[in-house]
């Protein structure tokens, strides 16, 4: 029945196809529990990843909760066009890219510098303690950090007290109510939270650098900075490249939690980003199709950025994600 599907095995001449199928079935039966394990995972992914992927097609339909999705009329690119005509479009894109680029320029290289300097600390115990302390803020949630920041930046908060005490300002500034300060607050608080944590991976890569290289360099009369620049940094180049690819592909991902916690109606003009917009129109305004359209557009651009950054780093220094 499957004679034309199966090529004859060259080793034993003609093994009948049904024999092969039998041994395949026997193999399958022997690993039935393994298959159950794998298929449970696949089933979860189908429900929680693939069904939502299919439901993303509501971006091309007019979906409302009164009818099942299959009855929602197709409307083509209407929702995408609507987004391009929305007054929020430019502020949202400017805020998203503005904050992401600031984070990429400032908060991407600083953990590398921190890791390089921490790597030069001679006392092992001191080094371990700094590491442990620097990881701490990563484990605080943005909700907690938002509470701390609201406290510090309030009119009677410590920042205003210090600045007034030193005579820099005469009256308290409402930092979270001033659109001008929002980006700085976001970049600075992100740095505070993730500096140590982001350095972990570079430190791990540095611990893999062969001590022979440093010894040879010392023999040749290289100083500390030269060793950092000519040995440590080139050795972690691959790690930096991979993290850079990931950072670029995340340019449209603002830190949703961070911004949701820090934003308010007064700083809206500088705090609205794509992720917040998708949440607002989708969950709060129940414009499901429109929100899904904006989200889809964002995902496609992010995928493009990932592939683009991957190509560029591959060409520049031969490292790539795939």
């Amino acid at each position, binding site marked *: 029945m499957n004679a034309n599907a199966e090529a004859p095995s060259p080793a034993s001449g003609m093994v009948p196809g049904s024999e092969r199928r039998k041994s395949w079935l026997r193999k399958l039966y022997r690993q039935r529990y393994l298959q159950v394990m794998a298929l449970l995972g696949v089933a979860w992914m189908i429900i929680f990843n693939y069904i939502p992927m299919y439901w993303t097609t509501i971006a091309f339909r007019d979906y409302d909760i009164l009818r099942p999705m299959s009855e929602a009329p197709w409307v083509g690119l209407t929702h995408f066009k609507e987004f391009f005509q929305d007054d929020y479009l430019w502020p949202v894109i400017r805020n998203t890219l503005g904050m992401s680029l600031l984070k990429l320029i400032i908060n991407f290289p600083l953990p590398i510098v921190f890791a390089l300097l921490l790597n030069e600390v001679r006392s092992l115990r001191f080094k371990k303690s700094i590491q442990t302390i620097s990881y701490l803020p990563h484990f605080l949630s943005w909700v907690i950090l938002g509470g701390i920041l609201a406290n510090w930046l309030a009119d009677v908060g*410590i920042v205003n007290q210090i600045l007034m005490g030193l005579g820099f300002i005469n009256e308290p500034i409402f930092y979270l109510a001033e659109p001008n300060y929002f980006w700085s607050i976001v970049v600075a608080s992100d740095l505070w939270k993730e500096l140590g944590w982001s350095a972990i991976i570079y430190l791990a890569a540095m611990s893999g650098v062969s001590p022979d290289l440093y010894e040879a360099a010392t023999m040749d009369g290289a100083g500390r900075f030269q060793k950092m620049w000519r040995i440590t940094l080139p050795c972690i180049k691959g790690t930096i490249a991979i993290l850079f690819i990931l950072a670029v592909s995340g340019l449209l991902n603002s830190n949703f939690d961070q911004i949701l916690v820090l934003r308010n109606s007064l700083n809206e003009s500088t705090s609205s980003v794509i992720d917040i917009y998708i949440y607002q129109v989708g969950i709060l305004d129940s414009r499901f199709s429109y929100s899904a359209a904006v989200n889809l557009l964002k995902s496609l651009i992010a995928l493009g950025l990932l592939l683009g950054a991957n190509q560029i780093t591959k060409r520049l220094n031969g490292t790539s994600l795939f």
Partner: protein
Amino acid sequence: MFSLNRRTVGEAAFDWVNNLLMLIICFATLYPIWNVLVNAFNDGTDAMRGGIYWWPRQFSLDNFKTVFESNGIMTAMGVTVAKTVVGTVVHVLFTAMVAYAYSRRELIGRTVYMVIGTITMLFPGALIPTFLLIRDLGMIDHFSVYIIPALFSFFDLIIFLSFFREIPDGLIEAAEIDGAGDFTVLFRIVLPVSMPVVATIALFHGVYQWNDYFTGMIYINNTDLQPIQTFLFRVVAQASSNQMISAMPSGVATNVTSQSLKLATMIVTTAPIVIVYPFLQRYFVRGFMIGSIKG
């Protein structure tokens, strides 16, 4: 040899400056937390005057007493503890189980399974389609919404996978010759020798569950089912001190303000993680490395 060990003046100066810089970073990291701590241990009404920087001015435990006496806060804490414990245990077991199957070379269809998983990483779930799915599954206002949508993660599977591949085949084969089935091999052999990765994933997922306010915010309306982070989010971000005040038990000490109660709740919420993570540090540093470099 002697000349190699001798440090020049420049080297010594560099070490001093570097160590000083590290101390400044540590201070900048710890001080904000210390500041919250001393304010939470200070009398609430007195703290409103401000100026508490290094040490409580009027030491008081009333804020914390109020937190532990508040039914609203304690219920939310209970939800958080339950979702973290149950969520982490089932996430680790389920993801490790699937990863173990994926790690076996004889698994029929392994390539297809890998492709199915990899695609999920390139197209992360969108907000609205996921929201509609969870609504249709009837998980709104149900405890399972914390557990089942977070049961599995393909990224975590890859971290498990890279550990499982390093387990010598002989170990598993020997167990199979002794008649152990796949589940026995997984739970008796593979998981016990993979404790570093189990600890890593458990910590990462535990922190996610503990800190997650979003699920509680969009899927839960019943305040008895909201976790502490959602409660705090409503207090912090929406500046609704009403919720804080309504969480205060009646007949509470009058020197407790909604602000001081908020700080104390924040401390109580954060303390468990801060106490646990240093003990798991050596595991997650290794887990992080393998997961990010090989993955």
